[in-house]
């Protein structure tokens, strides 16, 4: 049995169905790796460690996300990032980072089961999310390459526009995932 | 001044209501009084009334910066109950309840005190433990009340949703039959008229801008209508108490927060009691005029703006719709906010201050309307004698130094 077979997404109790009418498509991209990265962005050892393992520096511009090969790095705060890896890669990336940070004030914490990713796509993707997200999702204001930690209804999320402009990626917490999906599905009724 | 009654009403109707006297005079402030009460809310006016009535101090004035009753007294959801957990609170609020029970007659002013009962709902097992604890304590303190089941609640309030499958199901409630509501404005006006009858000067549009003291004792105040002297000053300004404390040179353990409320359009009677839920943050009763009167939770920031933030209202209305799904098509007519003075232990501060002759009565936060007569009664004692009454002794400012807090947060779930 490979370990992937032993996994269950937080959304196991949710039924995903084909969108009706003009409702956006909502799908899960399960089982990515999620690493919470902490460090002082002005510390050379830290910068070098990230560069060494991920091939890029952690973004220091607020509310941005960058691609780093197979991985993506989201700015979370002045000393905090989220690294999203391909499924199953998290342990290797974590161990490499931990090794690269030897002696450097930093933290790399595996939160892979704590988060999951949702894609909301289609013409009304922004409208669906805007039902209860206070962020301005207009393409003039929120472009691919940007990301934001904000809220959706009564739960937190990290949102970023998909590169192809088809919609948004939402990274949400496991224990709120069920609620948020039910919430989005209910909100989608307005577009059916 | 004529007494109010059905006979005086008929008599005056015959003379086209041309002969009603003013409910209170609007005198010019004198240069000096035996005592000043700063703040013309319910508490300040009640203090003046009882100072005159119980302590014979009639050469006194109430100074109000705006119009009397325009502070929290005029913007609260009017819930009256005395079923508090801790002995100290229970005794104080019960004293108030007893005064409420004869208040219209005592004041000769119908304050429409309506003892329609108050339900405090429990939504989880810990809520129910707390409710049991409080009701048991109330009973031993001689305060009416009992624990009721969801079915009993439903019988009394057929409109309520007791479905056990809902997000925060109603598991039960405490019920205090003697609790209820009153007509808030009438409370201020009734006390004002009552105090005026004893000769108390009620001076509106008179903002206190400085407190004068000599050798650690008060001598008077500066106001927007000039200097007024007095050797005893009672400060009863609710949300503004820190501002007044600063004038007197000390700080208070108080934060002033917006607290919001709203009313629906008037509808025919449908809610015949008072329902409070701390867990989902909604409080509801129906005024005699027919509007549903709904109170929200506090806004998290300090604010003197008499307005709060929209999400607070949004959540409160959702909570009401969750408890009363049939009200979704009823409409909200108006929303507003007050400035509540919250203390760390959610209990009032009543008593002496570091300045001699200066007394403070504040910290009633989200729940002082119910205490209006009792608060005035004990504070009058304190101002008149210079010493706290037994009922307000535990509520002194120095409890923050000794640590003797009367924490009504935890178990009693204080609010309104």
């Amino acid at each position, binding site marked *: 049995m490979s370990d992937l077979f*032993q996994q*269950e997404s937080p959304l*196991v*109790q949710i039924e995903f169905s084909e969108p009706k009418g003009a409702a956006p498509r909502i799908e899960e991209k399960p089982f990515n790796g999620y690493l919470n990265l902490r460090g002082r962005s002005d510390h050379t050892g830290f910068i070098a460690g990230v560069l060494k393992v991920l091939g890029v520096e952690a973004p220091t511009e607020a509310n941005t996300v960058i691609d780093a090969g197979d991985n993506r790095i989201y700015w979370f705060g002045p*000393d905090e990032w989220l690294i999203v890896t391909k499924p199953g890669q998290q342990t290797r990336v974590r161990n490499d980072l931990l090794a690269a940070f030897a002696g450097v004030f*930093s*933290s790399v914490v595996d*939160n892979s*089961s*704590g988060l999951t990713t949702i894609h909301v796509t289609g013409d009304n993707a922004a*409208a669906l999310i*805007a039902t*209860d997200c206070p962020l*301005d999702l207009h393409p003039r204001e929120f472009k691919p390459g940007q990301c934001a930690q904000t809220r959706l*209804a009564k739960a937190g999320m990290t949102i970023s526009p998909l590169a192809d402009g088809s919609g948004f990626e939402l990274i949400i917490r496991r*224990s709120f995932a069920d*609620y948020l999906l*039910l919430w989005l599905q209910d909100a989608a*009724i*307005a577009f059916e | 001044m004529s007494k*109010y009654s059905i006979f005086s*009403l008929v008599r005056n109707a015959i003379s*086209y*209501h041309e002969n009603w006297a003013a409910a*209170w*005079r609007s005198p010019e402030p004198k240069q000096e009084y035996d005592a000043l009460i700063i703040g013309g809310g319910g508490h300040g006016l009640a203090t003046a009334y009882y100072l005159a009535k119980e302590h014979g101090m009639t050469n006194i004035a109430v100074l109000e910066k705006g*119009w009397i009753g*325009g502070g929290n007294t005029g913007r609260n959801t009017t819930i009256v109950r005395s079923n508090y957990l801790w002995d100290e609170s229970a005794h104080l609020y019960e004293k108030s309840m007893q005064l409420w029970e004869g208040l219209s*007659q005592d004041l000769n002013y119908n*304050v*429409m005190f309506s003892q329609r009962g108050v339900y405090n709902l429990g939504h*989880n097992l*810990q809520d129910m433990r707390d409710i*049991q604890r*409080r*009701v048991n*304590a109330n009973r031993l303190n001689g305060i009416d009340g009992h624990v009721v089941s969801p079915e009993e609640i439903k019988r009394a309030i057929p*409109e309520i949703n007791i479905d056990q499958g*809902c*997000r925060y199901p109603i598991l039960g409630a405490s019920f205090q039959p003697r609790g209820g509501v009153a007509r808030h404005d009438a409370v201020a*006006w009734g006390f004002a008229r009552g105090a005026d009858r004893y000769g108390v000067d009620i001076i509106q549009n008179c903002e206190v801008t400085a407190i004068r003291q000599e050798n650690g004792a008060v001598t008077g105040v500066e106001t927007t209508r000039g200097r007024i002297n007095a050797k005893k000053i009672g400060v009863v300004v609710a949300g503004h108490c820190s501002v007044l404390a600063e004038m007197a040179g000390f700080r208070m353990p108080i934060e002033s927060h917006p607290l919001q409320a709203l009313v629906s*359009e008037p509808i*025919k009677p449908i809610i015949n009691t008072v329902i409070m839920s701390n867990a989902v943050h909604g409080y509801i009763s129906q005024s*005699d005029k027919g509007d549903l009167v709904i109170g929200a939770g506090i806004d998290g920031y300090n604010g003197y703006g008499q*307005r709060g933030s*929209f999400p607070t*209202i949004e*959540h409160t209305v959702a909570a009401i719709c*969750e408890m009363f*799904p049939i009200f*979704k*098509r*009823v409409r909200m*007519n*108006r*929303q*507003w906010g007050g400035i509540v003075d919250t203390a760390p232990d959610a209990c009032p501060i009543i008593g002496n201050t570091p300045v001699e002759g200066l007394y403070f009565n504040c910290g009633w936060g989200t729940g002082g309307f119910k205490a209006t007569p009792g608060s005035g009664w004990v504070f009058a004692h304190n101002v008149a004698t210079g010493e706290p009454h037994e009922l307000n002794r535990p509520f002194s400012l120095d409890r923050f130094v*000794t*640590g003797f807090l009367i*924490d009504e947060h935890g178990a009693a779930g204080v609010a309104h």
Partner: protein
Amino acid sequence: MSQRFRTAQGGRVDREREIQFTFNGKSYTGLAGDTLCSALLANGVHMIGRSWKYHRPRGVMSAGSEEPNAIFQVEKGNRTIPNARGTQVELYDQLDASSVNCWPSLDLDLLSINSKFSRLMPAGFYYKTFMWPQSMWMKYEHFIRKASGLGESPRELDPDRYEHTHAHCDVLVGGGGVAGLSAALAAGRAGARVIIADEQSEFGGLTLASKARIDDGEASQWIENAVAELQQMPEVTLLPRSTVFGYHDYNFLTINQRLSDHLPLAERPASREKLWQVRAQQVVLATGAAERPLIFANNDRPGIMLASAASIYSNRYAVQPGSRAVVFTNNDSAYQSALDLKAAGVEVEAVVDARAGSDSELANTVRSAGIQVINGSVVIDTAGRKRLSSVQVMRLSAEGSSVSGETRALSCDLLAVSGGWSPVVHLNAQSGAKPVWDEANAMFRPGEPTQAQFSAGGANGTLDLAGCLQEGAAAGNQAAIACGFEASTQPARAEPIDSQAILPLWLLPSPYTPGRGPKAFVDMQNDVGAADIALAVREGFKSVEHVKRYTAMGFGTDQGKLGNINGMGILAASMGQSIAATGTTTYRPNYTPVSFGAFAGQNLGDRLFDPVRKTAMHAWHEENGALFEDVGQWKRPWYYPKDGEDLQQAIDRECLAVRDSVGILDASTLGKIEIRGKDSARFLEMIYTNNWMKLEVGKGRYGFMLGEDGMVMDDGVTIRLAEDHFFMHTTTGGAAGVLAWMERWLQTEWPEMEVFLTSVTDHWATAAVVGPKSRAVVSAVCDGIDFSAQAFPFMASKTGTIGDVECRVNRISFSGELAYEVNIPANHGRFMWEKLMQAGAAFNITPYGTETMHVLRAEKGYVIVGQDTDGSVTVDDLGLNWALSKTKDDFIGKRSLSRPDTVRKDRKQLVGLLTEDPQTVIPEGAQLVDDPKAPTPVPMIGHVSSSYYSACCGHSIAMALVKGGRDRMGDTVYASLAGGRVIEATITESVFYDKEGAKADV
């Protein structure tokens, strides 16, 4: 066609589409495009309701949101709407409307008797009576309540849904009359993101009912073009049927959009309303101006309406609002109404103008149309019971303060009144500005904005069409420029009109002695008359806010839109002061009432009212019959009843299974925080009350967190994973708070500390495997760990694998049994759980929930923060002094522990209780007394915080906080319960089971 008062042509109604509706049970027809009121008027129905207090017959006063009288119950059953304003209810097929607040019927309303006693019911009469005997008030109140209120609340569940949306824009335009449309065009053409909202079904505002011309065409054509152009702009959102009802701080505005109420019941979409929460860079308020009536005796009869409403009904709805009209005014605009009425085929008896002369172009047009103009005169009274039949007119003295001469009766069934115009400053005032009195034009103009905001058109006090167009375009341009766009739209053109000054009039002079004549109404909905205002002043209620509260003026569903300005004028006159000095009452949301459902949106019901947080094993618990307990937002298994078991039977079984063999508990909800950095131990020394520097790597320790007030705030086990790496557990309910609390100290007080915190609550699924057979179970499931007692002692932590997934096992016990908490990344949570169940099958492994967990821990005397503590309990009160470091200089809350009250000897202390009768369980929350027979108030010595029947001990056990309890071992105390029931109990230590702690130590 039964619509006898429908004009032959014109209007914006669709003559091809007849619509059936019923009013008070009687069937009528109207046309598509009608409102309920216009359709009723088309059928000659003028008396549509009764007033609130005196039950006087009332008719339609206006054609908009200011309507005080035309209040209906629309529909019955689950789609009923109480208090719908008939002027804004769009007619749809089979609409069912009835009057509110009259019984048994509108025609014969028994409470109209009140009108006979109206002299006994002046403002505030209830404060003066109903006081004797004291006990009777509740009876009086019962009848008072029955008599008040307007419509009926729904009694059935609402089938409709309500939506929310957040929106952002450069320019929000509130109001879509010509001023608003001009602003939207200007901003939209500049490229700005624009939202324009209007409460009506069509954009265009008052001008829809106007025959004026814009840009050399009909005004209505210009409106149509403007709307079409806006619709083409991708960045412009047009919201019809959308009321901007709140203007909050930081240019946050709320809009209620009605999606379905205008459709026949059968055709309605799922969503009824949508609440827009808008952040605007700039706001243009173009909410128009509202006409005021005039205040004279009996000014409330059906058939009396605003002159502008008469125009709107004539021009927009193609209805004759009467057959024979008198127009009564103090300004020019009503002359247009006279022309409009005449054009609609209404006979216009006269225009009565309070001004001595009127020679504006408009007035002259009226004269030349053959309409008589009676200058220098006012209406002093009216006649007609359920419909106006005539008005009486007298001459006004030159200085305007009295009337004289002959009374002249003019017979008419319509009186169109105009007392001038009031800019709709509501939103401007809500936003924080203070309206400014303009004496010359007798109006409150919008105040100096306190936010990024413009007012334009009628809303700004500009009443002529050309001015409205010009101001709208200017505001739109400026707003767009302020957002960084280039904007230069030229305003549309209209003919300027000459007009003559208004003669401000509040309470009109009349031959009656003030206060003695018939009532002259100011607030029609609340039956507040001019005499009530005078009475309030006489009684000392002099502030405008006092007058509002004493008389109820402006308290109605119209919030005084129609009456307040007149009321303030009358109040000012009564007080002998200016209107500017009198001021307005406070403007607040909602501009018009908004249904509760719209506020709640979709945030309702078992799934969406509040997040339901679930663990990775949730589905398994459901499948296996668990009942759940709410702990914070989490659902935790409470117990797992087997067929027919009640709570007690289930927990007896669960408890015994754990103590005898092995049980399993989902502990995933505990808060989990990773703490990293070289100062982590030092940080924990401050956060917890005990010592952390010397904790071995691989070992855990139990700790208490205090608030700075010294009271217990949270507890849990923290494990040292490396010198600079800890793993903290918090309580389920406390998790978020503890993280924020620790971050706050780190970020604000000790930023130099090298510590990073990361919440991993959601990442780990945790199963507590508990009981003598737990070692066998976990050994069978987890690889790579030596579970022997020596290798894996109590409070140790090890990593291993389950399958090929890394897991962490902590030997922690909250039950006094040998126990292991097995943690695995939550995606594998159910997999782990099922493995453990499989491995445990041999030992009859028993899943248990929070209730059994509570009993097990109580048997051991372990406390639960939040149940055995309430924010007023210290560690010492709990008898857990060992957890307070004696060696640390400081930790959070330490100083508070030496305050006079915290060192008191008679503080309440946690003790155990054993009941006299071992089968009796003291209810939790019971109060304890020494003497149950003591007179009230009975002194209380403490209360029972936890209490259970313990199947393992074979008797009931309880924990209680008792004054000086630790010095009272062996004393008898009494739990005093409702109904005089008393339970006797003895104070004991709080450990009831395995006092030596032998069971965990194996």
